[in-house]
């Protein structure tokens, strides 16, 4: 099959439009976001100057929002690479308009999440000691290792499938050709190049899955390796991974719905895509409930006093409202919406996704704070109220996320154009052949 390059009127013109046409909305969004980010930067510099006292953290609650957000953002990052890799691996044809967005989420959110432990440091000026004097026995170092590996793998995994699209942009001419020319690495779409690219993607997608799983497992190890009640649990690894994928899918759905609305991509992101991902979200919601249920039932049944203290604090203590809100947001709302076809519209799925993202953030809060608030020694219960500093940095982090997406979509197509083309040209035939090979009938010669 020959490459049809440089069509002046491309079938996928809608995907190029946001790159070449810049409206007022873009400048407005970017300036508002930059304003928020600069304000956040100021707040952070203030924190470095005065010390962590400007936050709401204290003794015994020595970890607060920063660690909650760290776990939360890294969790969201599982949207991407993992989901896109699994969908690619399982040859799910409906993945084509989704994978790019998913991978971008990973790259941006991972960078944000990875910064959080540094924001949390009392002495950020000494952060390089992690490399000069690091102790590999510390779970924090495992984290540094796995997050770096995941970031590297997922940015490469984002970049490789972008090369043919960058080449398309280069061939179109216009803005920033020099950049696209550089980033396209001389892609001409020859058979050989295609073969090499598809091999590289295949290798990466297999590699990226264990790395992604390791990242969130290791984050759970930060907690479960300590002796603290509520944390010291073997279930934490898979529990965190499930939660991460759960919140990741929800974030992906929100991003998809937003881009569909703002970039008018109704033709690409159809109800069927949302329904399929919605079903996946429903499964993860049930799985999340299963893990949560097991975790608490074991604790209550064993009734070790310190463990019980933490559990009852979660159920009835000062933070109880957040616990029950978590159950509502992570289980009741999404299950009701996603289990009935009537509610499973795009609007319904958007509500479910937002609810899950909030719920998963609350879950991280419910893991970090209650265990710290109830120390084993009889020192009374601690109380944590985040200060304006922590809230600002949280909002700033979200602003960085949105800005990252806005900027990305300004320079690159948010949906993989060549993969859509490939789907249109080759996959229909290929899938037909594949389905026929599943069916009984005269033996197909294919091995």
């Amino acid at each position, binding site marked *: 099959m020959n490459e049809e390059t440089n069509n002046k009127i491309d079938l996928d013109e809608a995907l190029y439009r946001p790159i070449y046409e810049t409206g007022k909305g873009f400048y407005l969004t970017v300036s508002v976001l930059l304003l928020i980010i600069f304000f956040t930067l100021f707040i952070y510099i203030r924190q470095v100057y005065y010390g962590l*006292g400007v936050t709401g953290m204290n003794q015994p609650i020595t970890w607060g929002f920063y660690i909650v957000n760290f776990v939360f953002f890294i969790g969201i990052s599982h949207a991407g690479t993992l989901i896109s890799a699994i969908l690619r691996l399982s040859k799910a044809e409906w993945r084509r308009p989704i994978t790019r967005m998913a991978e971008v989420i990973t790259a941006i959110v991972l960078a944000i999440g990875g910064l959080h432990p540094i924001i949390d440091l009392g*002495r950020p000026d000494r952060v390089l000691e992690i490399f000069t004097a690091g102790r590999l026995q510390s779970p924090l170092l495992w984290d540094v290792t796995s997050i770096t590996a995941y970031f590297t793998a997922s940015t490469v995994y984002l970049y490789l499938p972008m090369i043919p699209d960058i080449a398309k942009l280069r061939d179109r001419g216009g803005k920033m050709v020099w950049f696209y020319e550089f980033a396209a690495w001389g892609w001409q779409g020859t058979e050989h190049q295609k073969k090499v690219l598809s091999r590289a993607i295949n290798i990466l997608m297999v590699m990226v899955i264990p790395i992604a799983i390791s990242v969130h497992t290791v984050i759970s190890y930060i907690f479960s390796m300590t002796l603290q009640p509520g944390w010291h649990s073997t279930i934490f690894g898979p529990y965190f991974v499930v939660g991460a994928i759960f919140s990741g899918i929800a974030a992906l759905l929100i991003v998809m719905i937003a881009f569909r609305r703002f970039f008018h991509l109704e033709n690409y992101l159809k109800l069927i895509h949302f329904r399929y991902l919605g079903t996946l979200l429903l499964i993860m919601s049930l799985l999340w409930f299963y893990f949560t249920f097991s975790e608490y039932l074991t604790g209550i049944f064993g009734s070790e006093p310190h463990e019980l203290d933490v559990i009852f604090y979660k159920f009835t203590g000062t933070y109880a409202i957040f616990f029950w809100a978590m159950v509502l947001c992570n289980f009741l709302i999404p299950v009701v919406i996603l289990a009935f076809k009537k509610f499973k519209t795009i609007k319904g799925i958007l509500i479910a996704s937002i609810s899950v993202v909030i719920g998963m953030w609350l879950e991280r809060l419910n893991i970090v704070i209650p265990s710290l608030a109830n120390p084993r*020694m009889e020192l009374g219960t601690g109380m944590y109220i985040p200060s304006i500093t922590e809230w600002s940095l949280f909002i700033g982090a979200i602003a960085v996320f949105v800005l990252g997406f806005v900027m990305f979509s300004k320079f690159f197509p948010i949906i993989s154009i060549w993969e859509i083309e490939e789907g249109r040209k080759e996959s229909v035939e290929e899938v037909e052949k594949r389905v026929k090979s599943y069916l009984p009938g005269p033996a197909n010669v294919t091995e």
Partner: protein
Amino acid sequence: MPKWAMAIDLDKCTGCGDCMAACKLENNVAIVDPEQADEGRVMLWMDMMTIYEGEYPNIKLKRIPKPCFHCDNPPCIKVCPVHATYINEEGLVGQIYDRCIGCRYCMVACPYTAKVFNWYEPEWADEFKSCMNPDVSMRMKGVVEKCSFCAHRLQKVKENADADDREIADGEYMPACADSCSADAIFFGDLENKESKVYQLSQNPRAFRELENLGTIPKVFYLSERE
């Protein structure tokens, strides 16, 4: 090699808080202003747990002095990413302030909540500034600190003993809290030395350690008839 340990006789302790004050002065522990202290940022190396049991009018009050327990198997050093906390051959668990990056993982991992953090640059009233202990290094904002069993006193004791070419006598090395205790409730010494007072107290049937089931092996023994 000696193994330094403490024994606190709760039946003798009056809960007066002398040990806390002595510790604070001895170790240049920052003085946190009252609002900050209410927020849970009080800096105490030697804390005093106050436990109320029962209901009015039958209230039982327990006052338990709580230093760092200098565990033989310390959960804090296992998690430190930069070797900022360590246990030495003599069983003292120390903190390196210039190394600490302030991640507070050790505070989170300590089941005894023994560590404190410098939320702000440490401050003292002017009257205090002239009587800092020159033997104890000052801390800066953003690092974790904790009871050192007055390791600087051990240095001096060792120097004296070396100069006289003799072993350290039992009761020669005493942290400030043990030194200052007006009820004579805090004992300190070498757990390896079977003759030492601390060793004998540790074998006392009244002796127990906090959260022994965690396997941290604390080196602070409490003695009490109650409980």
